[in-house]
């Protein structure tokens, strides 16, 4: 996903434009300054890999990376993305699965899967910041991501393996 350029403008021409990098692609969007990033992604850009769960920053389903830092996209407005580097789950997918995603599969760290993109983004954020985080650090990094299905059994196995591996 590079080399192309995305432009999106809404009917309301009085809206300002915002330019930011989305998964490595320069993206220009004309929209209300206060439009939530989660709506830009899910509705305007049809990138529904980022989920929506509570809209108050309590469940982590909408987690994305902004300049490498995990951020709830439900609490981020369009103007806050100006000039920033926004990465979503769609941007994580290369030729093959990365080790975190692969471990999620192998350890049964997902069931319905609705929290999984957010979980993966939170962990990726930590791994960007720190190459070898401890188990406790990883646990803390996803303590703002709710999983209602697994009881965190599989997720704990993933963290344990990552911290040992």
């Amino acid at each position, binding site marked *: 996903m590079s080399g192309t350029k995305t432009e999106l403008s809404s009917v309301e021409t009085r809206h300002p434009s915002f330019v930011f990098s989305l998964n490595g692609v320069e993206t220009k969007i004309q929209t209300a300054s206060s439009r939530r990033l989660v709506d830009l992604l*899910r*509705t305007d850009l*049809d990138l*529904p*890999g*980022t*989920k*929506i*769960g*509570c*809209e*108050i920053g*309590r*469940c982590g*389903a909408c987690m994305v990376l902004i300049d490498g830092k995990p951020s709830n996209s439900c609490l981020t407005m369009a103007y806050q993305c100006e000039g920033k580097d926004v990465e*979503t*789950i*769609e941007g*994580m*997918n290369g030729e093959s*699965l990365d080790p975190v*995603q692969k471990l*999620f*599969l*192998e350890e*049964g760290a*997902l*069931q*319905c*899967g*609705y*929290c*999984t*993109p957010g979980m*993966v983004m939170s962990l990726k954020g930590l791994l960007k910041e720190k190459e070898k985080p401890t188990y406790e650090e990883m*646990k*803390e990094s*996803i*303590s*703002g*991501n*709710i*999983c*209602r*299905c*697994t*009881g*965190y*059994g*599989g*997720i*704990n196995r993933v963290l*344990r393996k990552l911290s040992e591996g």
Partner: protein
Amino acid sequence: MHLNEQTNSRPWRIRPDGQAKVTGELRYLTDMTSPGKLIGRVLRSGVPHARLLSVDTSKAKELPGVVSVLTSKDVPGLNGFGIAEPNQPVFCEDLIRYEGDAIAAVAAETNEIAERALELIEFEYEELPVLDTPEKALSSDAPLLHAEGNILHETSYSKGDVQKAFNLCHAIVEETYETPRQMHAFMETEGGIFVPEKHGKLTVYSPTQHGYKDQMQLARILGIPADDIRVVSSPIGGSFGGKDELNVQPFGALLALSSGKPVKMHYSRKESVIAGLKRHPMKVRMKSGVNQKGKLIAHQVEIISDTGAYATLGGPVLNFATEHAIGCYIIPHIELKGKAVYTNNGISGEFRGFGGNQVIFALEGQMDRLAEKINVDPWELRSRNLRTLHDLGPLGQRVLPNDGPSQVWEAIQETPLYKKTEHPPSVDEPWIVTGKGMSLAMHGSGLGYGIPDPAGGQIRLNEQGKIEVAFGHEEFGQGLLGTLEIMLLDHFNCDVEDLEIIIGDTALVPPSGSSTASRTTNMVWRALQNMKRPFLDKLFFKVNELTGEPVEQLQTGKNGIWKEAKQGEGREFVLTFQELAASCTEPLKCSTEFDFPVTPDPVIGGHYLYGSTSVIAEVEVNMLTGMIRVTGIDHVVAAGEVVNPLGYLGQIEGGSIMALGFTIIEDALMENGNYVTKNFDTYLVPTIADVPEIQHVEAVEELPEGDVHGPRGVGEIGSVALAPAIVSAIKQATGKWVTKLPVNPETILNVWDEPFPMDKEERKKGRERV
């Protein structure tokens, strides 16, 4: 079989829908969109009890961008829904019974316009007294919430003479237990997209646990034939029972047909909280007595269930609670009464465990208290009273021979947590006290006697040369697709690429009954058993016709049909599935229809098949704050063969943590009929910081001789028995019995009338005083 490591007879298998989930590529039904779609929104009453006098939608209709505005007058068919009893209006007509009652719905070009339109709808009402407890609703001067009264359903069961028996008891314990209004809190809220098709037909893409049931209910509302409605019901971002009943569907369907455009709906969390189902809060009074030998001889139970404004499955949930208030214990004298009471509180309905969780908390609490009273080990007391292989079921009905309770009673004593010796109190944090507790339960699967419980499936060799199975079930995370894949690979020894699994789409699948009640694994297992031989016969007969190879030497395998190995020679490839499919003029297919096994005795709600579980929990209680940390949970589950070890483990781990929430933190609080915990800032569910790192899960697979009913589902059983184990552990740690869930830290702090004693001996004395 210990399930935590990959040392099982079957290896762990990656779920087939997993890759699309970890990459975010899977489109859930609420992620779907359609060109020119409208956004559907619902106007809710906001008041819990009122007479609705008028609704004026004229201003909303004039707003540019609004395409459709509907009220009760616009429902062409039945203005009502409800799986068991359709007494919930799609739109209120005259009486508002809860704050989530729908007054009107709007379809508009954008969410913002739809929201503005809702504000422009005017409705007048006259408030009525709020019946916010079952007690108020039962009082003689209470206004009636439904024409038939304020009681949805009553149960009663008795045997022997309980009053006389109490007189003969050596010890009696009487206690009232209360359980919370737990929220399903699936991460994906209710929603979907509703697409009008040619000739007045409709396609519904919306999560449910029974696509054909939604089709039937929607046909009733829309006044069109069921066949004109296609329901695509899978994949789903979690349900736990909470999406079993209709939610957005009536509104989306009506708006799509009236506007002629696709309508997308997706509840906010707040709307999901207000409108959605919850677990029935129950008040369970139990009086139970034992004789000198510690044998239960009398058991009296009264269950009051707050069913909220409408029926949905409140009746069957009470039936289930009634049966499980006796559970796996043999008691000669029983008197049991239950009432499901309408109130102006939300709506209670189907939720993982289905009424079992509440009464098992009470029943196991009684066992622990009786044991303490007669100074017998609580596990020993259970053993003296457990059912044996050929005993009748809890309601005196004949059941399949079942000694699961004894199996799990035994097996829990081998788990790491059971064997762990108590760790000494920390010198640094003497205010942290620890305890362990155990509990046991039996849990029925299937819908029970008196409710139609059909099942079925199809298998065929499709045009692409794949073995294709089709079931009217849904994948909401439980792992049905993975379990089916494993079963199919076992049956046909083929490659994953040779398989095609179709579920959750009424245009493509046969009716299979609901994906609820721990029934799905069991039913697809049975369906494949029924279809395998006739399907293989058809395949091999055709191959014989084509190649002359003898039928009895043929077998399925990787990519196609093989001829079995002869002495000294390897097996021989005969032809590919594609070649076989291409040479068929008639598709090779089989189907099956049958019912979930049910007791022959006419005992409403009585079950025939059960799973059993025992659980041990370890807690740390902070005596300065009253906060509880669950530091260990081990589960034993007896539910027949483990088909999918990773899926099984996940169901128990996940069910267990949902039960941890039920026990110590979760409660959807209401005040005067209004929710006060409207989102995850105040309704807390466990995070990774709140759970033990490892839960050991042990599966007992041996079924009694002659049991041909195969693997039972385990979707619910991990969630039913943890609460009493935690409460028993808290008692051990603090000396305090808890009767109301979730455990209120203050009730634990009250143990100590004086400042917390730092000296261990002092603390011990304090406990003895309690």
